[in-house]
């Protein structure tokens, strides 16, 4: 089954600002990363998927339902975690999540049970009875995630879940999202402007820029390129490149670095031998994986 499918989806505001332009994409269930710079149209896409705003043109379907025709049916099966602060400071997490569970149609006792379950799954225990106003940013993000989970959706739409978190908090949140996607059997669409972040946990990646699709593909298809060795010498880069080419190694230049595909351990010996022969000062020699970021390097996505 196709999880999310759009066909020539376009959204313009006031006929002038284009948020989404002719976006056609289809993704299978799993963890989907939606990356793009701020203003690339990520939040607009999420709001269209929820049926909160109508597209200017094009078709969209979520879990096989058209959100423009039947938004309630979509929202019944989708959980949404907004980007911005959305928690009343004077309510406790338990009260808030229970209430929102009821708003999703859970009966009273079921809402209370599911609320404490959801809060437990995101790692909030006794503190759930304290007012949210006193929570750290990390705890607030967890409450926002719990309220999206409380009604047991089939799809979670997470808008910048790691926003405002420190590196450890980011890792914890990403681990949580990964667990939800793999162990809970719930598909997740994670929005982020940090590609390096979502590529660690996603099965599929959708990259958009200026409302246009850059690429949508299975992440393994994007990262299967072989590992490469990066060589840096303080001087004589040209000579080394020529020598390595003589040794039948396909060398690529990347600034001051020479990139050599890693075939086997023999590649190390060949490079070290060449450096020693030329008597060059070796600065570094290390292995690096192809990052998805390289696929979009020219777009400067990661710096947005």
């Amino acid at each position, binding site marked *: 089954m196709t999880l999310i499918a759009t066909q020539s989806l376009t959204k313009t505001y006031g006929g002038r600002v284009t948020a989404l332009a002719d976006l056609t994409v289809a993704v299978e269930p799993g963890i989907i990363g939606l990356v793009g710079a701020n203003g690339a149209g990520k939040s607009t896409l999420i*709001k269209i998927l*929820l049926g*909160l*705003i109508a597209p200017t043109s094009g078709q969209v379907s979520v879990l096989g339902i058209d959100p423009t025709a039947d*938004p*309630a*049916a979509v*929202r*019944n099966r*989708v959980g*949404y975690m*907004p980007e*911005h*602060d*959305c*928690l*009343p*400071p*004077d309510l406790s997490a338990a*009260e808030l999540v229970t*209430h*929102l569970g*009821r*708003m*999703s*149609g*859970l*009966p*009273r006792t*079921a809402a209370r049970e*599911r609320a404490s*379950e959801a809060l437990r*799954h995101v*790692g909030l*225990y006794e503190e759930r009875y304290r007012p949210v106003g006193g929570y750290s940013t*990390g705890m607030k993000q967890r409450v926002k995630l719990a*309220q999206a989970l409380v*009604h*047991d959706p089939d799809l979670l739409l997470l808008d910048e879940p790691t926003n405002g978190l420190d590196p*450890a*908090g980011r*890792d*914890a949140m*990403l*681990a*949580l999202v*990964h*667990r*939800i996607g793999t*162990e*809970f*059997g719930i598909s997740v669409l994670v929005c982020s402007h940090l590609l390096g972040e979502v590529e*660690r*946990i996603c099965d599929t990646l959708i990259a958009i820029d200026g409302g246009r699709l850059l690429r949508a593909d299975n992440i393994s298809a994007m990262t299967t390129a072989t590992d490469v060795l990066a060589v840096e010498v303080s001087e004589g880069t040209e000579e080394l490149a020529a020598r390595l080419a003589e040794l039948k190694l396909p060398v690529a230049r990347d600034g001051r670095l020479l990139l050599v595909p890693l075939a086997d351990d023999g590649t190390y010996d060949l490079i070290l031998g060449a450096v020693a022969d030329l008597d060059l000062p070796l600065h570094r020699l290390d292995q690096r994986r192809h990052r998805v970021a390289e696929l979009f390097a020219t777009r400067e996505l990661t710096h947005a």
Partner: protein
Amino acid sequence: MPEPSTTTARQTPTGVIHDIGYQRYEGPRLGRRQVFGALYLHGLRTAFGFGRSAKAKIFPWLVVGIVTLVAVALAAIRSQIGEPVATYAQFADSMSWLVIFFVAVVAPELVSRDLRSGVLPLYFSRPLPRSDYALAKLLALATALWLLLGGPQLLMFLGAAFTTKQGMRGVWNELLDLLPGLLYAGLWAVVFASVGLLVASLTGKRAFAAGGVVAVFLMTTPIVGVLSILPSRAANELAGLASPSTLVQGVGIWSLGDLLVEGDQGGPSIGGFGPVYALAAVLLVAGATALLLARYRKVAS
């Protein structure tokens, strides 16, 4: 795929997350009507500060205390002197200031708080339609106001019914007096709830919302005052239309007659404009509700 979970344990101060597995929910999911009911009841509880901090309970219950005290006093005096000091409708009228302050506190509590905290996207990303949110809050506020006025009226009725000297016939007559009083209280509730909630829904700042509600209800009274001393009889008789409180009184005078004003004593004269007052009240409630719904079509999208 690298697993970032090694840092989870270090980050979570409460320790390792013990995974006893995620359970899918297989139970019933309620429909739109039950969700509306749940939101309505939640709003009604919020109006009286239930499920809220002690601070949020102070003002609503202060008002409830005062109106109850007045009702008990009226019932006690009546049982002593044997005739009513104030009819049920007159009681509702004389409590109008307290109703205004109750609205000024409760309406912001119901809607401004949600606007301020940005929680609305969490509601609107759920199946519940936006209009249901606004109508459930409106209905909750109207019910709260009706209970505020109707509860003490019921106390007065009980006091009268137990001290009547005419047996069952006395109780029956008393009941016939009570019912119009309860309807009149309902009119107060609907008019004040619709206008008050609309004003409060315009801002997320509770203090501004409360000030706005008081301003709309009280600042309009001087207009009534000016109109009622103009040298034109029609202007005088239509003056009450300018303010919600006098508008409600006008409808009361027209529909209840001597249950509200006895003979010539006090009360503004509305001449033959009773139906105009009734129509104005209906239009006011309908207009305020329509604007409220329009407001919630736009907000937080």
